[in-house]
């Protein structure tokens, strides 16, 4: 079955709702409209207004009400319409959702999935192209994942909904229209990273929207690039990363989010700690710059490109 990324999430949500009557969807414009990206298209028609709720326009309440639903035994899946709109809900996510298991010593679980269309590259206005993942990765108690392709989108949303932990589910919106084959089985756990393309010379770490960029770079590179799709950002699955780095000795991390204290910083620290004697060069980072997201006419100079990835790969060879 070949589907677009957006339709793959839709199919995954549908399957999860069929599997478990406690799965409910909440969000702005997700019902009759089917979501601004049509990810929930048709679900309200088939599952009813009680299970697919068009909510009042209030993000903190979308997440806060989900806490109450989870207390009652439901598994809420919420849609935050755009990445920049998550901040009004940030307090409920960080102060409530993430810590209730810990506070209650395991008696309260918060199986809430917060879906966020994230990242740039679609020519959007301000607050519609953000990459806030690091702000959730640094919050203990949250699982943070970012699928990069339709197969993972379909299976990871189902795994996220089945998880008893709260999951921040980042959907790379510039990849919503990419199509791909959906396999009959997930083939891999939610909490695992995966080698997307094997190579010998340089390890390239990516997730979400930048996986495709890095695979294209691997096609063009003179060096043999091993591209790892991280998939899970918290908890990190470092084993495939460290195995690869021990073999190549060279690493490039690629993400759209700003550089300072981004995921690349954590990866560089962990790789240095674990693979110091294997490293032939410092860890290179290709990221968005440390500015607010720029006007979209210049966003392609802000976002990691194939050229910038290749340049960083070349830089690892200079040591």
């Amino acid at each position, binding site marked *: 079955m070949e589907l677009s990324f957006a339709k793959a999430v839709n199919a995954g949500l549908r399957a999860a709702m069929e599997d478990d009557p406690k799965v409910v969807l909440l969000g702005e414009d997700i019902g009759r409209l089917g979501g601004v990206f049509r990810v929930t298209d048709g679900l309200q028609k088939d599952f009813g207004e009680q299970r697919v709720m068009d909510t009042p326009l209030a993000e903190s309440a979308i997440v806060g*009400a989900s806490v*109450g*639903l989870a*207390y009652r035994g*439901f598994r809420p899946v919420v849609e935050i319409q755009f990445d920049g709109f998550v901040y009004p809900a940030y307090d*409920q996510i960080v*102060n409530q959702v993430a810590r209730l298991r810990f506070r209650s010593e395991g*008696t309260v679980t918060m199986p809430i999935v917060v879906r966020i269309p994230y990242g740039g590259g679609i020519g959007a206005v301000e607050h519609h192209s953000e990459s806030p993942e690091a702000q959730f990765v640094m919050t203990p108690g949250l699982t943070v994942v970012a699928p990069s392709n339709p197969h993972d989108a379909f299976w990871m949303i189902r795994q996220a909904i089945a998880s008893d932990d709260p999951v921040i589910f980042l959907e790379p919106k510039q990849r919503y229209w990419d199509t791909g084959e959906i396999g009959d089985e997930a083939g891999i756990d939610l909490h695992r990273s995966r080698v997307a393309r094997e190579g010998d010379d340089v390890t390239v770490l990516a997730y979400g929207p930048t996986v495709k960029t890095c695979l294209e770079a691997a096609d063009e590179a003179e060096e043999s690039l091993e591209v790892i799709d991280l998939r899970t950002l918290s*908890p990190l699955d470092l084993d495939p990363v460290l195995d690869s780095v021990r073999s190549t000795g060279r690493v490039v991390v690629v993400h759209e989010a700003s550089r300072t204290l981004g995921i690349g910083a954590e990866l560089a620290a962990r790789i240095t700690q674990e693979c110091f004697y294997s490293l032939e060069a410092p860890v290179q980072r290709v990221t968005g710059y440390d500015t607010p997201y720029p006007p979209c006419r210049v966003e392609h100079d802000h976002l990691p490109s194939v050229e910038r990835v290749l340049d960083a790969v070349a830089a690892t060879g200079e040591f």
Partner: protein
Amino acid sequence: MGLPISRTLAPDGELVSAHDFTVEDLRGFHRDMVLARRIDTEAYALQRHGELGLWAPLLGQEAAQIGSGRALDPDDFVFPSYREHGVAWCRGIDPAKLLGLFRGTSLGGWDPAEHRYALPAIIIGAQTLHAVGYGIGLTLEGRESAAIAYFGDGATSQGDTNEAFVWAASYNAPVVFFCQNNQYAISVPLERQTRIPIAQRAAGFGFEGVRVDGNDVLAVHQVTSEALRKAREGGGPTLIEAVTYRMGAHTTSDDPTRYRDPHEAEQWAERDPLLRLRRLLERTDPQFEEFDAQVQAEADRLGEHLRESCRNLPDPDLAELFRHVYADVPPELVAQREEVRSWS
């Protein structure tokens, strides 16, 4: 301006409107309020003796908490703030379990599902949204039950609380918003939060708001019972403003003499919620003196239990707490747990 204040029992102990409580009911309220006050004064003393890092006193708010707490059905679910020790008492939580949060031995202390009493929200107003979500869940299940959110006058300025009002109205959720208007948000008086009575705000959101004398346990029980009944029967949310007074400090770290006129506290002392019910019972219940002696003895035993339990609360094992961050402990936390153990 606006809404009248419901009252059944006047400060002088005179009944000013009808009720159908039995003598046993009245004695029960008296017992609960005396014990709630004892929980509070004991915990306050424990803090002063250095056994607790902090305490948030309920002194003066016993009628608001017991009157509403005793109106709840076992199946109703409470989303409290951190001052609702009297409501916790009504839900059958051992008061010693309330101390862990303030002694620093726990961030919770009980299983919310067992007592149908959530862990207290410390972020002001956050729990109002949880109550609404829970109420929506009840509606989805078709259950005749209700959620109740407790918060103070300060919380009515929070965005979350106002979003909760919008949502509760929109979904006609079976939720009672129980605001204890104790006149102060730490040091800031009510006038800074609102220009109109808090209960009057409900009309703007599209549901009923009622004001009640929060120091009148009978009236509080009556209005809360009615609001809960309405919620369970599909009548939607109610905002109850229980007008009361925080006779003590915000917490033991606070100093109300910096911002309150002592004259004001004296005036409210005359409206003490325990005093007025005592006046009624002394006048109307021939066996009250004997009953009261039993209650005082029970309060003494409760105080002893609290002192004993407090000192025996075990420090948590930091490494053990790592089990509760995620459903399964991830590899990095396993490694960090070993680090903790290597130091202890």
